[in-house]
């Protein structure tokens, strides 16, 4: 390896000048800012570890078989479970997905396949604005059109509120995954005489399927953890709902209702339900990461 003395004197002088350029206070400054940025990163991640750790610590002990098969305990009772809330969450997320997935995918197909220019830009803009509307207002909206007219809180209303919440997420992720599909695939399909419908359904959608599935997974996980759109659309119930038009329990509203009660039995159940929700979103996020990396 060449050392400094191998070079001509003028080059040596230049190298010395460059090497001595960062004065010691400057180097100290560099180290200070690097340290501060590292500290901020640490500070940003500490809450994640604390939340997950504490939820595990409080929730794991109560996550037994009984929790999955029995109804929530009455105030002073011990034990019990969140079976009805678990089923309620699954049912309402399913209703939400059944409404929003076809809606969102068709809208995204229009954006990426059949539109261009100003129209697509405005619809994408509206989609982004819709995803910024506070989730509690989705609840207010569904309250205004469902609960007021049917005069009852219900799983249907809750499911539709979740659908409004999921819609912009689905449109955006599907739109993005369709745009990644190479345009040559479409040309090849159309060149072979396929119609627009055939091109989209048989060629473009299958090619984008993993990315679309990821988007659906993330939207479902997000909806499963949402509380605000449900508290006054689906409300809550201590018992099994007898149908879709009855007030329905959900895990997230159970956590909210049982969070600050003075009864230990209900509080520990809130932690167990939190653990389920946290595990669900963690699993969905890791799965999504894994699929998109491949």
């Amino acid at each position, binding site marked *: 390896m060449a050392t400094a003395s191998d070079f001509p004197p003028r080059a040596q002088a230049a190298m010395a000048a460059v090497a001595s350029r960062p004065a010691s206070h400057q180097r100290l400054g560099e180290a200070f800012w690097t340290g501060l940025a*590292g500290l901020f990163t640490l500070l940003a991640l500490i809450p994640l570890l604390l*939340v997950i750790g504490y939820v595990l610590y409080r929730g794991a002990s109560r996550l037994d078989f009984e929790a999955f098969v029995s109804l929530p305990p009455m105030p002073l009772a011990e034990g019990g479970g969140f079976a009805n809330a678990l089923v309620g969450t699954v049912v309402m997320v399913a209703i939400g997905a059944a409404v929003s997935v076809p809606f969102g995918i068709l809208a995204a197909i229009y954006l990426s396949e059949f539109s261009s220019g100003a129209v697509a830009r405005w619809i994408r803009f509206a989609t982004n604005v819709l995803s910024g509307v506070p989730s509690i207002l989705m609840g207010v909206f569904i309250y205004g059109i469902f609960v007021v007219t049917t005069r009852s809180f219900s799983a249907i209303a809750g499911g539709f509120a979740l659908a409004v919440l999921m819609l912009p997420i689905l449109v955006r992720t599907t739109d993005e995954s369709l745009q990644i599909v190479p345009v040559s695939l479409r040309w090849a399909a159309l060149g072979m005489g396929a*119609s627009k419908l055939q091109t989209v359904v048989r060629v473009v959608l299958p090619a984008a399927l993993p990315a679309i599935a990821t988007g659906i997974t993330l939207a479902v996980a997000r909806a499963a953890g949402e509380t605000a759109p449900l508290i006054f659309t689906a409300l809550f119930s201590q018992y099994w709902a007898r149908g879709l038009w009855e007030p329905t329990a959900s895990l997230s509203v159970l956590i909210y209702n049982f969070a600050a009660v003075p009864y230990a039995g209900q509080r520990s159940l809130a932690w167990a339900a939190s653990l389920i929700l946290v595990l669900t979103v963690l699993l969905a996020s890791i799965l999504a990461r894994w699929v998109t990396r491949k």
Partner: protein
Amino acid sequence: MVLSPGETDFPEIPPRPPVSLWLDRSFVWATRLFAFGVVGVLVYIAIVVGLDAQPAMERYGLAFLTTSAWNPVNDTYGALPMIYGTLVSSLIALLLAVPIGVGTAVFLSENFLPPTPRLVLNFMVELLAAIPSVVYGLWGIYVLIPFLKPIGAWLHSHWGWIPLFSTQYLGPGLFPAGIILTVMILPLITAISRDSLVSLPPTLRQAALGLGATRWTAIFRVLIPAAFSGIVGGTMLALGRAMGETMAVTMVIGNSNVLSPSLLAPANTIASLLANQFAEARDLQISALMYAGLVLFGLTLIVNVLAEWIVSRVKYY
């Protein structure tokens, strides 16, 4: 190869069967319908909330925004304390989250760490955004509020003459709500700032370093200014998110409808007010709540439209 008409000897292409043509057209129309449906949902939300707020708007007018009474018994409603709480809790969150978020974004976009740990840390920041709001709230009640007690007590005993710290730390209040919001909007600010830093042309950095700038001089004087609009856009989006965030805030803010300048006193936000009162509300109270919801809708709409506008301009960099 370019073919001009007449040069081809392709067989005549048969016309498409009408059924296929019809299917194609209706498919395109169906997708168009749903795409405009997304816009329709946004408009419909505004209409429903606006119409249901009408009775309260007629009765209270603009005084609703500047008075502070919330009494369902004699139907007097004013949303000033909640508007104050919404704005102040969001501002606390921004003040804390912007430096931390931008610092994290710089740290994760530069090569301070090898690529793999950087990828892991980026993923962890994303996870921070995935934790449900209600879980943050539960954690806030049992971990954050007790943890902040000595800090709140210190603020009151040393800086109590400032109106912001003029009351005892009782637990729930604007202070813990602001901290929870900080945690919740951090990933958004970090992600968007990082994206705009990473997408800067590498020549910018090379030029700065070539002129003899140190790494951090390049970051402060060249890279952050160049990514500034992206960072501002991300901050605006985060502001919108913070103003509308409901569950975590509701659980730690104390839900007091009395206006107090102190950050240590219980307060309320518009979103928390809706979460608390909607399920049991009657008649005019529903309308008053819808009016408050409309105010929140307007606030977040302005912030989001501005943010989207800024962020969409960044993409054409």
